[in-house]
């Protein structure tokens, strides 16, 4: 698998800093602006605004912030003061993508964003890949049935049946699992498979 070119530029990215106002937060805010990010801040006692309003979260790992309750789906960077095992466990438990140590200084901020954004994108792409593989496993049975059906109807061997199905899938530009589902669906009551199977035109 060839790796995608890493993202190095973050202009326009919306960052949220969940940390009380102090020199750490002030300097981080200034530095993020230098990098072209749009920055909002929220004190640790404040309520973080709704999901979807920022693309990157910096949070204070020295406070027991209710991150788990928020169901956030953005890359997160922990602002770490206390580097003790308990706090690092807590940070790991919230899937932080990288760390910045306090007191915040210029060195390390850009690097931590590069890592957080790229790790996060890689995590998403691995999750999507995993979902694709899971659905392949789920529909493996359908492929076997479709091959058997084709062998039966056309009197060919399994290799020829599979090649035929694969060719048809390629011609219709859908996965072989989808094609097999379609082939089998013709024997089934209408709509039976469609409840669970996304059709070609439903795909992104």
């Amino acid at each position: 698998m060839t790796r995608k070119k890493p993202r190095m530029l973050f202009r326009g990215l919306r960052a949220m800093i969940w940390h009380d106002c102090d020199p750490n937060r002030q300097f981080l805010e200034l530095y993020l602006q230098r990098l072209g990010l749009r920055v909002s801040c929220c004190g640790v006692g404040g309520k973080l605004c709704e999901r979807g309003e920022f693309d990157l979260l910096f949070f204070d790992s020295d406070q027991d912030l209710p991150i788990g309750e928020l169901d956030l789906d953005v890359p997160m960077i922990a602002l770490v003061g206390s580097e003790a095992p308990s706090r690092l466990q807590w940070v790991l438990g919230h899937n932080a993508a990288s760390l910045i140590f306090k007191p915040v200084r210029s060195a390390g901020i850009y690097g931590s964003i590069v890592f957080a954004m790229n790790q996060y994108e890689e995590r998403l792409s691995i999750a999507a890949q995993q979902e694709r593989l899971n659905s392949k496993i789920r529909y493996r049975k359908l492929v076997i049935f479709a091959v058997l059906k084709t062998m039966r109807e056309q009197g060919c061997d399994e290799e020829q049946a599979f090649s035929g199905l694969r060719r048809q899938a390629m011609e219709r530009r859908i996965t072989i699992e989808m094609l097999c589902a379609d082939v089998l669906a013709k024997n089934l009551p209408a709509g039976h498979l469609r409840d669970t199977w996304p059709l070609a035109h439903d795909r992104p």
Partner: protein
Amino acid sequence: MSLNNIHNGVAEIPVGILYSITGPYGDVNASMVNAAILGLEEANAELDGSFKLKPVFKDCHGKLSTYSKNCERMIYEDGCQHIIGCYTSAARKQILPLLERTNTLLWHSARYEGFEASENVLYLGASPNQHLIPLVRYILAAMVPEIYCVGSNYIWTWESNRLLREQIIEGGGRIIAQRLVTMGDLHIDHIVSEIISLKPPVVFNTLVGEASYRFYRALWRAVSAHPDLEPGDITVVSCSLCEEELPFIGEPASIGHLTSATYFRSLERLENVDFLTRYRERFGDDTAPSVDAESAYVCARILGRSIAASGTDAVSAVRDAAKTFSFEAPEGTVRIDRTTNHSFLTPRLAVSRRGFSFQIIWEAAEPVDPDPFLVWQGEAQARPETEWKAKGSSARARHVVDTEAKES
């Protein structure tokens, strides 16, 4: 007020000058030390006895550990809160934690590869959008953009090549090859042979010191000896070749190379002619500064005016004051940007000619915004200043500059 020593009624402020006049790049650092000293002397004269800037020079011999040691001595023993210096990025990175810990301000004179913006550094040297980007644009517009890269294996080369590759490919050109040699390795004949066989129209050179001079000489000999090639068929371009290095290469090998920089000695500007005269009067007729030295001079002059404006040598007050005015430097109008601590500078392209000098072939119409993280490239240099949020509009930095220039 934290002025240091009162001497004959005049507050004396020690200013560190941290370069290496011996070691691998000692030859080019000597003029930076001279220029910084000249700048401090002129700042003292301008201020007419209200305070005295005292140069504290320490030679670092090009060794990283010596930079740390000398910087520490300047801060703790000599009481320096302001230091002019550093030629390589490695040296700057070495002393940066110490500067930040002790809240000391470095006035950084050299061009560098960007991607840094410390509160304890004022960057008077150019960042890539002021040296490499103009060069790339020129290559794409006026040359065949097929480039062979040769360089010393270190950060300046890595970052320059990365950026060059991205910009050239985006512009429809290509990188033919990239060859790196270990820093200090003088064996470059195999690279010259490869260049002669590939015949690239452009060679991008990031070699340093003696390796670079040997490369220019060897390439000239090889091109001259080749039946199908003429000097000029292969143009060597760089962001580092300067006047002081041309005699080390020697004529005619030193002629015809394209350099991007914010200052050339041949710049026709009254401030520059006067500056060169004063420099030669002070240090001898056979001496003259090049880009990084001129920038060290500008550091000293802006430092002097900032201390005068703030009435103290305290770092935060001086840093704030330094961003409130522009300075008519030999290289043009220089102003330090509020947001990035980098400077508005005027990019120029020049070709080396006979007499160890450069002929300027292009210059930007006005000083260019610093963009150390290359955030605003492709936006026609549009960059919001810090006030943009408050105003609710994305004011172009250039307009902001214009307004401030009119006000001052």
